[in-house]
């Protein structure tokens, strides 16, 4: 030990003297800072701060931002905000919150009112913030609570903005609704900035662009006197209102579609084929989103969610239907592009199509006789397309179906979209662990079998055929504006691909669709207008295969086994301005159930929405047609 210590003692500790003087000085300086600050707070500002702590209480409250408006393309407000009143409790001000709440209930009982809040009281961690007890309360209760405030320490009336959906059920699915954030959503990284009790978009556009609509909460710290009156604002951060979302929708057209649709369930989607904008999107049955403003009552929710008709489902993007005869255009496109058939080649239809040990039938039992491709589309001959489909093979059909945008998400800004299904050999082997059967190709070639598509996907197929072959991402958001109306972001049309078809083939298909509506043998004559400017295609989707004999008596078939009626059309034929798709679930034949609905929509649109004169001047197509 001694040797070690002598080694360590080589340096004279007196050398440290200077360091200790410096260190001591730093300590003195540090304590002087603390002392000085204390002098400032306690002696100089002491009286002021004491006054503040003794006479007044300080109350913190969140300032909720106004959620952005949703507006249609013509400036009509689809969603805005209105005021609603909550009865809330500030736990830190109520000495005994449970007691205060029981006092409140007792007060209600005296007036034969019932307490609508949750029976359990979860005060949470931030006890200095108001916690809602009852939402959206009536004047009767508000008056009672205000008058008895002395008996109810910590109980306050909170004014909160709630959503007002001006079109109610008519636009419920597209716009969606808002509600209180759920515990599961709170854990989701997307919502990490939210607090429990926050109101968020739960479906539709409200959910898809929640981050744009929601704005940012502010807060204020105010001094209140014993009576709860605001004396002084100590600190305040204004709420930042959410941005306004301008959609491509046309509210009036939506209303027209809603009224035109006379079935029980189904969908109408109207698209502008020139840029993929969605003009209207109806799904029936529907619900009133205003019910969700402040948390739906349990009984209402039960009634809705147990409804077999699924009123919450946005059928336009989340229901899959067999495209049925609408799909014949895809098969025709594939056959033309593959060089399998020319415009002149004919196939004979005798009404039946024997295949293996089965016999497939044409919808017209007596057969169509010899038909070329155009006639086959006009009369929607099944046998013709059985023949083409088998020659193409399911994988080639699938390739073209995908090029038309089927089987994948369109990417529209509406929550809950389904991607649909385009079957292939590989898919079946992988998913069902069974090899593909040739007979299944026969079903697929008339749009049945495993095929499933959303109305939105289907409307886009026809929009792209009618605009000359451009496939657009469906556009529902036009632009985002600040609350003052300044442009924040705009969303131009997004072309995502071209159909793999020559201009000549597209022309042939459009001509055939014109025939569907305007020629004597066409299946879509119900959509015929005297202007002869509609081109379209009917579809009748089998839900279950029925014995042939029963087919004729539609009304005797139980509702859930009836066929779905489909119709797609574009107007005016030479340079369409709108493409309409109608699906009537269990409506029967496309030509008789769906086409008349589409016609009503088209008639209204062509009458009330004249062509933008600028279009004819600036568009190539418009000016070309002006030439003699």
């Amino acid at each position, binding site marked *: 030990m001694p040797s070690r*210590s002598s080694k360590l003692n*080589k340096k004279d*500790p007196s050398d440290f003297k200077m360091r200790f003087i410096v260190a001591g000085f730093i300590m003195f300086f540090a304590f002087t800072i603390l*002392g000085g600050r204390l*002098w400032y*707070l306690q002696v100089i500002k*002491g009286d002021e*701060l004491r006054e503040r*702590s003794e006479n007044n209480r300080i109350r913190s409250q969140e300032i909720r931002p106004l959620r952005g408006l949703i507006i249609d393309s013509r400036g009509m407000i689809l969603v805005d905000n209105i005021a609603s009143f909550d009865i809330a409790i500030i736990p830190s001000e109520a000495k005994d919150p449970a007691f205060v709440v029981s006092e409140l209930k007792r007060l209600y009982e005296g007036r034969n009112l019932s307490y609508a809040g949750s029976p359990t009281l979860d005060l949470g961690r931030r006890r200095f913030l108001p916690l809602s007890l009852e939402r959206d309360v009536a004047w009767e209760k508000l008056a009672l609570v205000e008058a008895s405030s002395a008996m109810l320490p910590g109980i306050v009336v909170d004014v909160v903005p709630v959503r007002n959906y001006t079109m109610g059920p008519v636009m419920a699915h597209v716009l969606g609704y808002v509600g209180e954030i759920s515990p599961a959503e709170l854990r989701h990284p997307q919502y990490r900035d939210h607090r429990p009790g926050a109101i968020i978009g739960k479906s539709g556009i409200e959910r898809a662009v929640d981050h744009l609509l929601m704005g940012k909460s502010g807060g204020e710290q105010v001094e209140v006197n014993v009576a709860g009156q605001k004396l002084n604002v100590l600190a305040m951060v204004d709420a930042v209102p959410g941005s306004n979302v301008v959609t491509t929708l046309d509210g009036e057209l939506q209303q027209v579609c809603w009224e035109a649709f006379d079935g029980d369930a189904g969908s109408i989607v109207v698209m502008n084929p020139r840029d993929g904008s969605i003009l209207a999107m109806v799904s029936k049955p529907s619900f009133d989103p205003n019910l969700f403003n402040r948390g739906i009552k349990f009984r209402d929710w039960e009634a809705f969610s147990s409804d077999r008709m699924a009123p919450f489902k946005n059928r336009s993007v989340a229901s899959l239907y067999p495209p049925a005869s609408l799909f014949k255009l895809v098969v025709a496109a594939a056959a033309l592009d593959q060089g399998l058939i020319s415009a002149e080649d004919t196939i004979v239809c005798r009404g039946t199509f024997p295949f293996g040990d089965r016999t497939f039938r044409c919808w017209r039992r007596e057969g169509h006789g010899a038909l070329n491709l155009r006639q086959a589309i006009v009369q929607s001959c099944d046998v013709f397309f059985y023949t083409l489909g088998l020659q193409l093979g399911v994988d080639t059909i699938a390739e073209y179906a995908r090029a038309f945008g089927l089987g994948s998400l369109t990417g529209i800004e509406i929550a809950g979209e389904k991607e649909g299904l385009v079957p292939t050999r590989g898919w079946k082997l992988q998913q069902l662990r069974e090899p593909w059967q040739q007979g299944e190709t026969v079903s697929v070639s008339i749009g049945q079998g495993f095929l499933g598509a959303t109305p939105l996907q289907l409307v886009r197929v026809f929009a792209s055929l009618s605009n000359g072959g451009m496939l657009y991402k469906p556009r529902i958001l036009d632009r985002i504006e600040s609350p003052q109306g300044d442009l924040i972001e705009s969303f131009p049309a997004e072309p995502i691909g071209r159909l793999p078809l020559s201009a000549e083939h597209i022309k042939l298909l459009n001509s055939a669709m014109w025939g569907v509506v305007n020629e004597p043998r066409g299946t879509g004559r119900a959509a015929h207008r005297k202007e002869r400017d509609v081109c379209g295609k009917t579809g009748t989707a089998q839900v279950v295969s029925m014995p042939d004999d029963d087919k004729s008596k539609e009304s005797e078939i139980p509702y859930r086994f009836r066929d779905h009626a489909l119709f797609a059309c574009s107007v005016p034929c030479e340079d369409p301005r709108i493409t309409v798709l109608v699906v009537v679930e269990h409506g029967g034949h496309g030509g008789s159930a769906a086409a008349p609905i589409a016609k009503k929509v088209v008639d209204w649109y062509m009458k009330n929405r004249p062509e933008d004169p600028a279009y004819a001047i600036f568009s190539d197509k418009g000016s070309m047609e002006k030439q003699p």
Partner: protein
Amino acid sequence: MKIDRRGLSNIDWVLPVLVLLICAIGITNLYSAGANLIGVGGGTAPWIKQVYWVGLGLVAMLACLAVDYRLIIRFGYILYGISVLLLLAVLIYGDMTHGSQRWLAVGGFSFQPSELVKLTLVIALIKYVDDRNVGTSFTIPALLIPFIILMIPAFMILKQPDLGTAFFLVLIFISIILFAGIERRSFIKLSIAGMSVLPGLWFIMKDYQKNRLVTFLNPERDPLGTGYHIIQSIIAVGSGGLLGKGYLKGTQSQLKFLPEQQTDFVFSVFAEEWGFLGVLILLILFFSLILWGFHVARRAREFSGVLLAYGMTMIIFWGVFINVGMVLGILPVVGIPLPFMSYGGSCMVVLMMAVGLIMNVSMRRFVLQS
């Protein structure tokens, strides 16, 4: 290890007396801070538990006194290694509270290894300085190993995440290195480098940490969150005035406006009830404690003793300065407890050990003369 009788007779009584005085004030204050808490019911009151912690701390203090501090320094790396392993255990098995993982539960007790590391880091650094040739100033290459010694626990504490304590370790490190001596040119280079690295810290901080920092710079930015606490703390302190509102009469604490009033914000309860004069006395006690620590360090007969007493004193100093600064709104809210006053066992025991080590140096200064 036998205790030299000369050592025993030279026990430094000033330190324990000062510390126990502060502890007594702390317990009295905790009684007031806890008096109004409704709903905590059941279990032992915090102020009574704190009495136990002081008792346990005294035992730990004696234990640190019994062993020759040179022996403790000789095992410095091993002690350091053990505490780093404990930190690792926290990251793996630790309990989560308020979004961070700081506690290790051992048979009904739980403690914070990050408190212990404050001591063992100092001891390990002294061990390193001691093994080197004494007296030569640090150059940048020579700082590499001490830097690694610092970064291992600092990084692990950052992972918990506990930015405040990690930063605390850095402050202790800088205090020791500067005192041990650093070559002037290296010092300038490192200062410049440090200044430029600082902004990078922003990117490794968690959101709530950034929030606290931004809120500190502008408390009115977040009147509902951290800013609320700062504003309330300042009102509590200021409303104490010159003479205070009187014991058990602090209205800010009565109304429970104060956050964490038994741990990080005990000082504002004290300041509200005892006023500027009371606080002045408390700060003088702390200041005396620190100066006495320096006094002991200056009289030590060898370099390692000087550094040990100095290092332990600095642990106390930084605790006081950061905590009080935070409560008074001149430093960000980082969750550093006030030494001997805040409720909590780990902190109390570890600080008592630090005092024990200073006393250890003090009583062995004569023994070494032989």
